[in-house]
């Protein structure tokens, strides 16, 4: 795919101040959560962002969407600079940029009905109302594998996998071009993970979505991604086509990460332990 990228992040920095003092906050240090990251995402592709806890991957995902204000650097979406835009200025762009969260229990308002939750972005953006809104929400529910009858239910009536489907329906409601999915399957039961991964793939094909798929599990990331960026201590230490990064990693940290992934095959696990001298 050629042409200008959908998303272009250049030298993005997000530092959090460490403050001390009772009456007067003095900034004594900076946590360099994102420390000069550049990356691009093309329309319709999936960039996997993999790293361990504290690597800065979630902060990066949020800073890209301007849910956190970057300290410095540039985020261009369809060629337009969005870093530092006010909430109001970002509002029209929220149609294009959406997020799916890790914890499907915490990211849905327990007091609202599913129809309200999924329909809220449509209502706020003035896309639809009344009967039209209802029909649109019901068709979204169907599209993510739920039933239109779920419209009047509350989040607690759903399993973790179904809640994640609700979160996905909300994210695609405005037909965004880019979704940042932050650990979208890591809180789910194993038999449900594959369902959600496959749903995200189907939606990508149907709607031409691009994903930034943030996760700690390089196995899942490799499965879903066209390209993978490996993040460590606020920096991207390696980036490339998914297969290449997993099969011929260049960076020492990437190698370490890959070597630590358990192989669900007892014979190969034994062979690897023997090779590493820990049989």
């Amino acid at each position: 795919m050629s042409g200008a990228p959908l998303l272009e992040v250049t030298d993005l920095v997000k530092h959090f101040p460490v403050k001390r003092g009772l009456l007067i906050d003095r900034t004594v240090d900076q946590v360099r959560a994102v420390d000069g990251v550049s990356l691009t995402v093309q329309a319709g592709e999936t960039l996997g962002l993999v790293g361990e806890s504290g690597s800065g991957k979630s902060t990066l995902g949020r800073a890209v969407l301007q849910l956190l204000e970057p300290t410095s650097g540039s985020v261009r979406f369809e060629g337009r600079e969005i870093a530092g835009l006010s909430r109001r200025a970002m509002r029209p762009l929220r149609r294009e940029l959406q997020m799916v969260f890790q914890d499907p229990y915490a990211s849905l308002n327990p007091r609202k009905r599913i129809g309200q939750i999924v329909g809220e972005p449509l209502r706020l953006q003035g896309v639809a109302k009344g009967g039209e809104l209802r029909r649109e929400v019901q068709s979204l529910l169907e599209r993510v594998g739920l039933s239109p009858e779920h419209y009047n239910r509350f989040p607690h009536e759903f399993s973790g996998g179904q809640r994640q489907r609700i979160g996905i329906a909300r994210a695609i409601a405005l037909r965004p071009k880019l979704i940042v999915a932050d650990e979208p399957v890591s809180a789910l039961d194993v038999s449900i993970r594959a369902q959600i991964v496959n749903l995200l793939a189907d939606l990508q094909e149907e709607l031409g979505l691009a994903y930034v798929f943030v996760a700690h599990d390089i196995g899942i990331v490799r499965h879903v991604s066209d390209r993978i960026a490996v993040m460590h201590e606020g920096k991207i230490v390696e980036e490339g086509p998914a297969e290449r990064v997993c099969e011929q990693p260049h960076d020492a940290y990437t190698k370490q990460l890959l070597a630590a992934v358990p192989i669900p095959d007892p014979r190969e696990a034994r062979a690897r332990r023997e090779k590493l001298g820990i049989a």
Partner: protein
Amino acid sequence: MSAGPLLAVRDLRVGFATEGGRVQAVDGVSFELAPGEVLAIVGESGAGKSVTAQTIIGLTRSANARIEGSVRLGGTELIDAGDEELRKVRGERVGMIFQDPMTSFNPVYRIGAQIVEAIRAHGGGTSKADARERAIELLNSVGIPNAAQRVDAYPHEFSGGMRQRAMIAMALALEPEVLIADEPTTALDVTVQAQILALLASLNRERALATILITHDLGVVAEVADRVLVMYGGRVVEQGTLDEIFYDPQHPYTWGLLGSLTRIDRDRPERLPQISGAPPSLLDLPQGCSFRPRCPHEFGRCSELPGLEARLADAPSHLDRCWLTPEGKRERRLVEGEIGLEAPAQ
């Protein structure tokens, strides 16, 4: 110790009275554990794996619980043991570690002080100084650097991996014969997980520690287990040796679990094979085989609950709950040449 098993669980059943009705959280679980052996209990939320482990050491006892069956540790029956006796068993004979070490440590006391307390509470007459020496030794043995200094740290000053090591140290303080590890690496990064798994494996070898490992991660199972119990809806649906479960799985749920794994050592499939539907509610288990509503191989007989039996002539300890014939299973479990669960016919 005689040749008999260290721990023998027989037909364990745990039921709870809840607002929504009675649930049978554990329904007839049996297994044996020998010194130095690692038994993995695999399953999803609600499968009954944690309740099984907690019941072994009496942690599920309550007015709302009905516990039946037998748990013998050495020669001692634990199911009807007194609270005082159970308290001694916990810690002294059976250690336990959990997913979140923060729940085992009191955040306002130093790590060392908590280990010292555990030693002195059980150890009858160990002096404070000796117990502290022992705590440092233990922290050192689980790979905590500068243990002599770190012993005075508070739990929040440790990283997740260090905290998990400290919890293992505390669980080992009284030299238990059995260790119950409930999702011990689920909250950890993979590089730390690999270190903790290596630590657990060395404890098994060096101390002949028998381990019950509860996990949903078959990758972790493949790295450390000797035998595996696969649970679904409160029942064991398959049990066997590590190799039997991975290379000759007999139950469609096991096929589905194995098939849906992402493997970095294999080519990626176009789509990830999935198990359709969701795990059942214990309040509303299907009649017969609990996996029936999600199983593409369901047939008439499945409305009758299959027993957990050896169905293979050459593997008497490989048990499963599925009515399909062994030949039928070997044929049906292959999806594009790999073990998996085929997509249900629409």
